């Protein structure tokens, strides 16, 4: 598959020093000396903007659309589930639209603005945003449809984007949200009034629903009065790294371009990073397998109560220059000779290009994410028992120099770095504590009998931040361990890098195999201190993968079984000291690895009823052998003996 290089254009036209503090403005700061009431009543008339009566038009327009009519007539012809008249289906569609649709109203937005301003000022030290890109986004909005694709790390994301648009006089986006929000009484109404619409998490078999959703989204593309916002990752990433993209919504949204309904669609990715995430603890427990609490209004309010008065540090928002889809994917010219435009479907080529675009967009999101200072601090403190401010400054400077090339450095300058670190330490005082007068640490002394789950949860909170460093620097990290463990010849390094790129693609979006040129520049970037930090951060991922591979090789074939076994095995591993990484207790990687193995042809998904089991298509022991090279002897020995024991027990049975 040809990859879509969305960077090329930007590189050519943008000055490399674009991420200096100068470009950034603080949108909360602006409000600090103003009454919130003034803010919420400010003159706000962006162009274009959703018509105040839009909701009514949308339903009529969708019902009158040729596509919708066609689907209705087809359903009538097929005579599915109690569908007996045109009117009957129209009622169903109206119900879906009512459940789904936003009820955009400027009044609500102003009220939300009032509270948001208060909340942001209360919780955060500031929200930094690259102003010049916002101006470009604003200009793109006046030219045609725009998709805003933010990273998704927190519920605060979409509030923030709307707030930002309101502040910067950009039409507020309509936002695709998961139907789970519907469970929150009152709050769901407020969000709908603010432009959120709800779609079910999966609706593959519901032709009517599929048609209504796609018509709904495409209505907003074709009548571009407001940008459409959705999350490419499909869900909040709970681990600080980008998730593999979901293609469905993007395909729907881009269809009008491929069909020729609009000349072009522009995409702005928005990378939002938090010095401290609201949900940090929640995520850690979810990764350990404690289910996510159901969204509810009371839960929401109590969460608001809990976080009030705490310091969540700085937020960084990096808006990309608008990416023109037309510049990257050309439309087909061969005639669609016997398909009317309302039955347009994307062809294989277009699907593969959209797929490729989606991956490139999440890569861009990951790469553009401004590294929070806390990511560097916690990474440094994960490797070192304790460090003082000067040492921490040294780490920040060191990583910033590498991040310039492989990611986006921390938003600090020589004269602000110390203050930034102090602010960050203050925000994270719950996990980074003062070990002595000058020294800071995040590795508490482990007392006997401490609950391993609680300890692991703490580690996983840390990992959410360290991953924000490992994510962009993954290639540097992998290069470091390849070089250290086995290979000196560049051809060997390239081969090894291909292995990692293949099996960790879903875990680390930016991972690639190397070319000769890459090796040269990776060599330049390498520094023993840096290699050491990154190597340690990467290690638990290799261990998890290794254990998962063993479990699959042992014949566990459903995600549930593997999760259960994984938890048992890892508990024993940690108890016996075969690994020192508590992080490996997290089970969130399992499904990503399994799906990756499916993609790579080692496993095959077999669906029986509601259960999916994964059958081995070939021998995966070569992968195990390969990954073993990079692991600690203790873990290898443990797994080998564990498998022998299991085989023994099975033979006894």
């Amino acid at each position, binding site marked *: 598959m040809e990859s879509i290089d969305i960077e090329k254009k930007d590189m050519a036209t943008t000055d490399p020093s674009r991420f200096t503090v100068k470009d950034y403005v603080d949108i909360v700061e602006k409000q600090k000396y103003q009454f919130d009431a003034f803010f919420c009543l400010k003159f706000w008339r962006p162009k274009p903007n959703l018509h105040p009566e839009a909701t009514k038009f949308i339903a009529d327009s969708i019902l009158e659309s*040729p596509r919708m009519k*066609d689907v209705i007539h087809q359903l009538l012809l097929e*005579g599915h589930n109690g569908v007996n008249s045109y009117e009957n289906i129209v009622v169903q569609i109206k119900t879906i639209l009512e459940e789904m649709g936003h009820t955009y109203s400027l009044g609500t937005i102003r009220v939300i603005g009032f509270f948001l301003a208060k909340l942001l000022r209360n919780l955060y030290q500031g929200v930094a945003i690259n102003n010049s890109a916002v101006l470009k986004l604003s200009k793109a909005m006046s030219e045609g449809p725009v998709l805003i694709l933010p990273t998704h790390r927190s519920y605060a994301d979409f509030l923030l984007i709307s707030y930002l648009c309101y502040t910067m006089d950009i039409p507020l986006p309509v936002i695709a949200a998961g139907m789970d929000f519907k469970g929150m009484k009152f709050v769901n109404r407020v969000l709908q009034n603010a432009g959120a619409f709800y779609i079910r998490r999966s609706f*593959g078999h519901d032709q009517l629903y*599929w048609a209504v959703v796609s018509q709904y989204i495409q209505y907003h593309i074709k009548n571009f009065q407001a940008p459409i916002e959705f999350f490419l990752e499909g869900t909040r990433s709970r681990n600080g790294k980008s998730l*593999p*993209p979901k293609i469905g919504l993007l395909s729907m949204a881009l269809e009008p371009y491929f069909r020729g309904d609009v000349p072009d669609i522009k995409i702005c990715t928005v990378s939002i990073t938090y010095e401290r995430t609201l949900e940090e603890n929640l995520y850690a427990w979810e990764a350990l397998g404690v289910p996510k609490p159901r969204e509810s209004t009371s839960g929401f309010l109590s969460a608001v109560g809990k976080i009030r008065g705490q310091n969540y540090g700085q937020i960084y928002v990096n808006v990309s220059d608008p990416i023109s889809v037309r510049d990257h994917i050309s439309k087909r010219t061969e005639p669609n000779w*016997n398909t009317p435009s309302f039955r347009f479907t994307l062809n294989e080529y277009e699907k593969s290009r959209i797929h490729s675009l989606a991956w490139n967009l999440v890569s861009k999101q990951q790469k553009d994410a401004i590294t929070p200072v806390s990511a560097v601090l916690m990474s440094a403190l994960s490797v070192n028992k304790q460090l003082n401010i000067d040492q921490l400054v040294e780490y920040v400077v060191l990583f910033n120099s590498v991040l310039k090339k492989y990611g986006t450095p921390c938003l600090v300058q020589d004269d602000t770095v110390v203050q930034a670190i102090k602010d960050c330490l203050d925000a994270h005082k719950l996990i980074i504590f003062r070990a002595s007068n000058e020294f800071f640490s995040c590795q508490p002394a482990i007392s006997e009998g401490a609950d391993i789950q609680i300890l692991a949860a703490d580690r996983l909170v840390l990992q959410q931040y360290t991953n924000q460093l490992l994510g962009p620097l993954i290639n540097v990290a992998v290069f470091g361990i390849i070089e250290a463990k086995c290979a000196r010849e560049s051809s060997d390094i390239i081969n090894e890098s291909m292995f990692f790129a293949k099996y960790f693609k879903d875990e680390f979006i930016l991972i690639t195999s190397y070319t000769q040129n890459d090796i040269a520049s990776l060599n330049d970037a390498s520094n023993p201190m840096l290699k050491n930090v990154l190597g340690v951060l990467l290690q638990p991922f290799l261990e998890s993968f290794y254990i998962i591979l063993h479990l699959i090789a042992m014949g566990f074939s459903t995600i549930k079984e593997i999760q259960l076994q994984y938890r048992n095995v890892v508990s024993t591993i940690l108890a016996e000291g075969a690994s020192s990484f508590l992080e490996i207790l997290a089970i969130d990687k399992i499904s990503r690895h399994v799906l990756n193995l499916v993609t790579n042809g080692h496993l095959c998904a077999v669906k029986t009823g509601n259960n999916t089991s994964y059958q081995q298509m070939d021998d995966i022991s070569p992968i195990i052998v390969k990954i073993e090279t990079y692991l600690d002897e203790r873990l290898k020995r443990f797994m080998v003996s564990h498998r022998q024991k299991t085989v023994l027990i099975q033979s006894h049975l």
Partner: protein
Amino acid sequence: MADSSADRLAVIHRHLSRDSDGKAAGPKVPSSIPKKRQELLRWNGWGYEDSGFVLSNLGTEQNPKYVFTFSGSRYEIASADLPHFFDWAYATIGVDPAKKKDPQGEPSYPPPIVNEGFVSDLKNTKITFSFEGMDRLFRAHGHTLHDIALLRGGQFLRIPDVVVWPECHSHVEELITLASKHNVAIVPIGGGTNVTGAVDCKHGEKRMIVSLDTSQMNQILWIDDGNLVAHVESGIIGKDLEDRLQARGYTTGHEPDSYEFSSLGGWVATRASGMKKNRYGNIEDLVVALRAVTPNGEWRSSGTYPRVSTGPDMNHVMIGSEGTLGVVTEVTIKIRPVPPVRKYASFVFPDFDCGVKFMRQVARDRCQPASLRLMDNQQFQFGQALRPSKGPFGLMVDGLKNFYLTRLKGLDIEKICVATIVMEGTVKEVAIQEEKLTGIGIEFQGIPAGEHNGKRGYQLTFAIAYIRDIGLDYGVVAESFETSVPWDRVVNVVNNTKSRLEKECADRKFSHSFISARVTQVYDAGACIYFYFGFNYGNMSMLQAVEVYEELEIIARDEIMASGGSLSHHHGVGKIRKKWLPSILTSNAINVLHSIKSTVDPQNIMAAGNLVFD
């Protein structure tokens, strides 16, 4: 794809599974005509089994009183006795109730030629097929006099060896691939209403003959309200197409007299014409795009464009190809909203000349209504004979009308002719049309004869097709044939042809014969003329009479062409008009046809043997 969303997407796409043609998977709407056509249709004559003319004696044996009725309840004409018809039939064509000639029963069937390889491959497909005699016989013929005579009292030497029912484009592809592989002949058939011998099997065909019945490809794949086109599988029967479109508020407006039984694909393959072509166009105007399967692969339009300039129109290779190049499988056809108003009208003219002049002027002024026809005097008389019984008051009105026309207006009842008119459109459009037509009518000595007469003319259209069967019952052979003529030759062609046939009949000393003509279509540059010719064959055998008839039809065609008429307006060439092609086409044209054939069908799989092909 690398993630669960990809899986989900795949599921979604599978569910929405349209194949590459944008066709939705779903239950099929059945055709109104069953696969076993003989269950609904008459196997040895026209139309529905339950409908037709019946002659019965209402009096006693000594004092008989014969009356015609029309059976069934499908047609308006069936609602009342036809008290005047017997007198007309007796006087004009010599129908003698005593000399009824019953048709033979179900004949024996020639054993099929079986290509084992083809049949065993066919069994591995999902395509249904039949070796049953009646299924094969039903598809061995069209509706020429010759075909019907053989069914009633003769024997087909060659009938299809197997009937197959493909259900979609890809089935047809499969079939034609198999046929090419095993060198088997394919003859496609739609409604089987041709009158040119187009689906009749060639006697010399030694290969297995597969009758490819398109009737199960009968779905409307989509309707595009925005562009007013529908994409339809070719086997759909005209009436089904019309009913289903009307349920959505649309019509194709294509209404050939056979539309209850003929198929879309058949219309395309014969270059059909419909009654209301003035408003909606002939089939070649209606087809926006088409798709066909040839032995050398797919043949299709480049897209559903309103018009293109990309070299010669390649759609026309298939339109009118009469089954010799490929099988038309899907057609994108124009549709129109059903007009709010349909109004009938009629004019009486003192003679045929005046009527033709009226038609000419309407064409010159380009104010053609949806349909415009001119009946000659014989047909006028015939139409009068078919009028239903009325109470005494009705008779009185008829008498008054007669009085008014003949005594006050001085018309000769033996010379007058009638123009019938259908107007469609909005109330306003129709009013304007009517006003214009009335003006022109009066200019050419026409007398408006009311809505009722016009309406009856059109209602009779479909029932009249049943008349040949009752004629054969009483020793009358009859057939219709058409031509197209430039305006300045219309009257000559009609007069010369009638005169020639009258002479030939006199020479042969027929007791009764009937020759009539009508102008059924007007164009800018000319008109379409329809001839009806029949005679009472007295003591000849039916098959002898058919031979004589064929001789006379050839004489008539020669006369038509010598007087300036064409070989065919819309029936096509088939097998019965092949012999004239070398004289009307240049050798270049014939060579081009052969080149096309050798490109798309070098093995002559599509062996219908029509047009210039063997």
